[in-house]
């Protein structure tokens, strides 16, 4: 998979814009999902994802494959999301949690199951949004995106011990939130 990324990066460096388009097609859903989990808002998530890809487009010629392309892309997306979250913090504090009725909940279980799934998602998302950024980033990357610890350390620029420690704290806080909400 990473080989294809490097291939498309090479296309782009050779002047073929198609290489960038392929990279977008391959990663847009994961980047969007990461931004959505970080921000909890569909509009902000698209804005962040587009901004991340635009930064990638600007810097792709200088990308030297010292890290995996996806790691580099995720690092940019995380940083953009954090910046966007800071700018929209005031608004998000005023607004109700984003239930996003157009979400892709599985309608197979019927309307009631669909509604319950959406409530569950909104509940968890509210817990994620309640976390400070230093805890939210490793939690989203590990427990939602499934990235390994080394890659999270590379994305966040923290060492492995710090990542483990923050993730442990993030999970504790998240469990406390879920337990509190459940009661």
């Amino acid at each position, binding site marked *: 998979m990473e080989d294809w990324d490097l291939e498309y990066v090479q296309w782009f460096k050779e002047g073929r814009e198609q290489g960038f*388009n392929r990279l977008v097609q391959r990663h847009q859903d994961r980047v969007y*999902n990461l931004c*959505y*989990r970080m921000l909890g808002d569909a509009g902000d998530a698209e804005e962040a994802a587009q901004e991340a890809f*635009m930064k990638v487009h600007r810097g792709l010629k200088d990308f030297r494959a010292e890290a995996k392309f996806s790691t580099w892309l995720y690092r940019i997306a995380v940083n953009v999301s954090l910046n966007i979250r800071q700018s929209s913090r005031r608004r998000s504090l005023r607004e109700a949690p984003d239930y996003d009725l157009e*979400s*892709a909940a599985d309608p197979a279980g019927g309307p009631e199951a669909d509604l319950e799934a959406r409530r569950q998602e909104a509940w968890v998302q509210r817990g994620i949004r309640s976390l400070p950024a230093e805890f939210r980033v490793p939690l989203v990357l590990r427990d939602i995106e499934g990235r390994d610890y080394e890659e999270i350390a590379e994305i966040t620029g923290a060492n492995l011990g710090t990542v483990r420690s923050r993730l442990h704290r993030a999970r504790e806080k998240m469990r406390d939130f*879920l337990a509190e909400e459940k009661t």
Partner: protein
Amino acid sequence: MSEHLSPEALELWAMGSADSAEERRHLDICLECAQDLKEAKEYFAALGGLPSRKAPPGFALRLRARLDAPSGWRKLGAALFFPWYFKVPMQLVGAALVALLIWALPARLGKSVPLQLAQAENPAPSPAPPPADHGEMAEKKIAPERSENRRGKLEESDELISPEPPRPPVPENLAMARGRASGARAFSPKLENPQSLQPMDEPVAAIESPSGAAKSAASESKAEPPASAPLPSIMLSLKQDSLIRALGFRLDIREGVVYYELKTSKVAGDSLATRLQNLGLGDRTIVYSSSESPDSVVIKVH
């Protein structure tokens, strides 16, 4: 295995990707780790149940549109330089005009400065030294125009001041010191007609002590200028003026005579006499005092 499972091991067990028999046995006998595993499973079930969000339709198209849109700098560059064959020459001409203006403006200002200086220096003599001879000082009267032109520098120099425009009349609540001492005459300096003032012949002594005031009454007529005679021109430097005004304030300037009202608390003892002497104004000053305002005196400098 005696130690509890690490968070990473619990995570693997909660996600169903652990297969250590030793850890399995520990979980069977350790209620604490079993409870932790249960909570971890609930946690991962909650987070794992989150659906994977997909990018909204048209995401790539909107991204492409943003990438293809000219940046702010490009827009600015296009606005400034496109079409270059028209805008660049126009900008060069504009820059040349601005440069010409910048060059020409100081040149014109530089021409006018010597003219002003020449006009200012031509009719009037140089600033006078501290007055020693009243007659000579009177001849060196500076024209009002000169004084106004160089007013900005007057504080630092010992420039001479000229009479100012007329001011409102002074309240008529003043009486001469001699009049107060004898109880005979009250002083009302009608500054519309300053020659009506009745000066003291030894004004400084009048301030110094009541006996001096009484003594000065004898030579009153000697010090008073003739009513019909023209007053001498005032030659009072700004330094002299400011030093006197430090004791009070200037009342008026009329026909070459300056009137000041001073606080007696500031001129007690011989300080006024000393100051006036030091300023070279000892014999050009007439001192009055107010019957209604005993804490102030009026001096007339001619």
